[in-house]
């Protein structure tokens, strides 16, 4: 019942992720909004959610603190814009040491899927195309211990924990003075 995770880019400011889960909507919605549940799945690629505060109401805030490899830390926070269980959840997102201006708006739409499952459609909307550019820039140029680690969790995971297979080609393309013709 769970399907593949699909990713599309409907505009130069948006990324859309879609995935189906084998669980009813209210349960999936809870997993996205309850700190005790969020702590159990939200991390990936060596990062763990260690602090999680949620004030689940429109205008209420949240704060997620994560711990990564080598003790690296990062914090993201924002304000809930839409809280409509079990159908819609929208919130702003900003990292404490964020490199780009403005806030990203994350919208999750929870729809019923065949067989009692739930499809989650997540739209990540950057405040501007420029902000998205910058978000793209850092994971390509970071060093292991740089202060951009918080982006790693969003974008790719840290170098020592991230999947290595595509990294080489990616960096060759992206690094200054090493652009292929």
């Amino acid at each position, binding site marked *: 019942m769970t399907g593949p995770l699909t*990713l599309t880019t409907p505009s*130069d400011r948006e990324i859309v992720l879609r995935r189906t889960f084998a669980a009813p909507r209210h349960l999936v919605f809870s997993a996205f909004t309850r700190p005790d549940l969020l702590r159990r799945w939200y991390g990936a690629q060596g990062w763990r959610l260690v602090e999680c505060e949620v004030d689940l109401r429109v205008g209420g805030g949240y704060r997620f603190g994560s711990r990564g490899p080598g003790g690296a830390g990062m914090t993201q926070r924002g304000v809930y814009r839409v809280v409509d269980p079990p159908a819609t959840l929208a919130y702003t997102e900003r990292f404490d040491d964020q490199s780009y201006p403005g806030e990203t708006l994350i919208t999750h739409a929870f729809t019923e899927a065949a067989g009692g499952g739930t499809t989650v459609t997540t739209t990540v909307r950057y405040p501007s195309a420029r902000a998205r550019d910058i978000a793209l820039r850092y994971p390509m140029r970071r060093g292991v211990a740089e202060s951009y680690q918080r982006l790693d969790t*969003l974008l790719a995971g840290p170098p020592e924990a991230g999947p290595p297979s595509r990294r080489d080609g990616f960096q060759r393309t992206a690094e200054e003075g090493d652009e292929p013709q």
Partner: protein
Amino acid sequence: MTVDAPDRLDATFAALADPTRRAILARLATGEATVTELAAPFAISQPAISKHLKVLERAGLISRGRDAQRRPCRLEAAPLAAAVSWLERYRRYWEERYRNLDALLHELQAGPAGERESPEQAPEQAPEQPPERGREPAR
């Protein structure tokens, strides 16, 4: 190749957002073509196609031949590969996260009998809410 990488990526994503431009790229993936050849399958004018080609060229996704008459277009793979690679890494991050979520949801539904739909019955975590079926969390 002097465009800064992030600007290039921005231009790449913008270029890819348009269905006609994606179709042009798909056509060029099979080999180089002239503007006339590229315009043929579309119900839009050659100047409109030329505009799309300029966007693709600025994004570094295509290059034009030197021949002033034909100026054949060809696909440039590197910027496309960079964009696709970034998105793939982003996708894989979420994929891992969502696999964790699959496991959690499975565990929650396989919980103690009679509490199948109550997320509060998850083992090893103290419930923060009273186990009330269907109730959405709020604080």
